[in-house]
């Protein structure tokens, strides 16, 4: 057998490929971000434009909007590759499926989650969140969106063979993402109140480590079932 591509090299190649594919369609790339901003705009319009009230609902609005917009993009994580047979070839390539799923998830997060973290201060400012809390929110979202991408990779892998899977995907992933929402919104809440948000942020970090180490195995197993 000829020299094989190492695991890390394979992962890097895969991430590079996915990023390149994503940047070939920049309009799709921006959609979740626009969705995020639009949803955060809905709340002042529907509830109240008073700054004091907005500040009260800001943590919930930011986190729910972030959760929903990342969820929206999740279906694209594996679907296209599964439909044209690329995913099957990747599984057959001899590279570990766990690495494959993890790399695809990281790539997905780089184009979907990270930009969301970067523009989150914009949405936060419009809701009257204090600068200190904007930083904490971005920190929390940084961990939260990555955790959600890993969690979502399991859901996306489980629904590979299902047609029109987006609603089912939400039903599978949202209940599992509740702890994220609780700790994330709590962190933002504490920061707005001027208190230390270290506790919830640490818990978010713990969830990230936990999910990032375990979810690729579950997602890998699901991918194997999906491409059979």
């Amino acid at each position, binding site marked *: 057998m000829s020299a094989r591509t190492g695991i890390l090299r394979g992962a890097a190649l895969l991430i590079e490929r996915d990023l390149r594919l994503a940047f070939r369609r920049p309009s799709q790339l921006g959609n979740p971000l626009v969705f995020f901003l639009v949803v955060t705009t809905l709340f002042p319009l529907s509830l109240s434009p008073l700054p004091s009230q907005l500040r009260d609902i800001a943590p919930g609005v930011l986190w729910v909007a972030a959760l929903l917009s990342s969820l929206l993009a999740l279906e694209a994580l594996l679907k296209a590759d599964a439909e044209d047979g690329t995913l099957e070839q990747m599984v057959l390539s001899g590279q570990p499926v766990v690495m494959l799923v993890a790399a695809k998830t990281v790539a997905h997060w780089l184009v979907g989650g990270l930009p969301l973290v970067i523009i989150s201060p914009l949405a936060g400012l419009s809701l009257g969140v204090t600068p200190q809390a904007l930083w904490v929110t971005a920190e929390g979202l940084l961990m939260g969106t990555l955790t959600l991408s890993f969690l979502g990779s399991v859901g996306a892998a489980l629904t590979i063979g*299902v047609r029109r899977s987006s609603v*089912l995907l939400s*039903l599978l992933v*949202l*209940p599992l993402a509740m702890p994220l929402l609780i700790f994330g919104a709590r962190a933002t809440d504490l920061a707005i109140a001027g208190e230390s948000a270290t506790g919830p942020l640490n818990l978010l970090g713990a969830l990230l480590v936990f999910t990032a180490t375990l*979810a690729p195995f579950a997602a890998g197993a*699901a991918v194997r079932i999906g491409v059979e």
Partner: protein
Amino acid sequence: MWTWFHKLASPPHVYRIAGLLVPWFGWVGGVLIAVGVVWGLRFAPADYQQGDGFRILYVHAPSAWMSMFTYVVMALAAGIGLIWRMKVAHAVAASCAPIGAAFTASALVTGALWGQRMWGTWWVWDARLTSELILLFLYFGYIALRSAYDDQQRADRASAILALVGVVNIPIIHYSVVWWNTLHQAASVTKLARPSIAPEMLIPLILMFFGFNIVFGAVLLTRLRGEVLLRERNADWIRALVAQP
């Protein structure tokens, strides 16, 4: 030594054994629940603080326990099915889901009734109630994923992975009482050392716990028989079974 294990993997054998066990489980569990209900509702002393209102505990606590226990059974069966490729284990997992959802719904409804009497509200966003609600959503997700697949084998294995992922939620439910200590009272029965509930109240509760567990066994075995029939509907042994007078 492993023959019994191998026999468990054979659908006709499981179908027959389950049929033999159902009446035993049903009767024993039914009698336990009947005794527990009469004892709990009629003879157990009223609570000094909650009066007769506390008596819904005899349905609420076992339901809540069973909602989690069923999920664990489902995840175990799913894991066995996934690892040893055992069709019957997948059938057990599939049979568990609707029962578990029913127990969860029962725990939520009785909890709401109890909350209305004691806290003056049907629903509070307390951690324990919320986790129980999330558990219900997990059951719904599992059932939805299973029904989304046409192919039985894929449905089995995909939903098995989901069950194993979801089992992570069970400890969160259990420890949420400790983590977010809000309106809901802390567990008073599972403290093994010294239960903080009067013995006269505890005995019927224990009867109800065992009754619920055993009746769950009966319902599970009945559903399992149905599930096996459905999955093996083209097999010869079922044709022979139906042809029997």
